[in-house]
């Protein structure tokens, strides 16, 4: 939660040019973006939900085959 207070300590509320320069980094941004968007490329069989789905489909097909 945020609370305001009177700035009695004269804390700087605007960044210096040096701080701006230090934080500005497009390469880092691009890298983080790539990591974020390239996530989730796990093989299907390693995803537990998909594995279960494939297993159930397989089981149903097997039972149908056995039935016939």
């Amino acid at each position, binding site marked *: *939660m*945020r*609370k*305001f*207070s*009177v*700035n*009695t*300590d004269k*804390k*700087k*509320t*605007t*960044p210096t040019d040096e*701080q*701006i320069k*230090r*934080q*500005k980094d*497009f390469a*880092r*941004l*691009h890298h*983080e*973006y790539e990591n*974020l*968007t390239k996530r989730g490329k796990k093989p299907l069989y390693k995803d537990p939900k998909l594995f279960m789905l494939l297993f159930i489909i397989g089981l149903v097909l097997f039972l149908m085959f056995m039935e016939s």
Partner: protein
Amino acid sequence: MTESEIVAMAKKDKVYFGELYDRYFEQIFRFSFKRLGGMEDVAGDVTQQVFIKAMANLSKYEDRGLPFSSWLYRIAQNEVSMFFRKKKKNYTVPVDENRIQDLASEAKVSTYMSMDDQSQLVEMLNELESDHLDLIELRFFQELSFKEIAEIYGITEANAKMRTYRILERIGKKWNSSK
């Protein structure tokens, strides 16, 4: 190259997003820095998050004649609010005396305020609903124009002005009844 042209190119190839980053980083970092009370690293992380979200959602961005920065401000506004919501403890944001003084005269509270008065007024602000406080913060502490506030909220300038003055009126009444 115009802003719309860069946006159109960045939609096709993310490499061009660097141009938008170069143009608007400073503005968004200054905004986050001030809203977060001068915490450089936190403001840096929030700003980074703003640009990652902008980059990821650029395909959804529609040019409605507003500056691209207003879309970034809107994302930054949400990111900062989310940061405060996640914080379990209170996060104190210092506000300069002259900003409180400006607010006090607009709310017709007083033209000059002692230190005690300022603290009391800030306490009163802290009791406001968070969306009201956001509006007051953008106008008086971030010193944004009504036009910029309107662009962030996607409302008209007149509406932004009306909402702000209604809150100020409420603050003024509360102040006077407490005195």
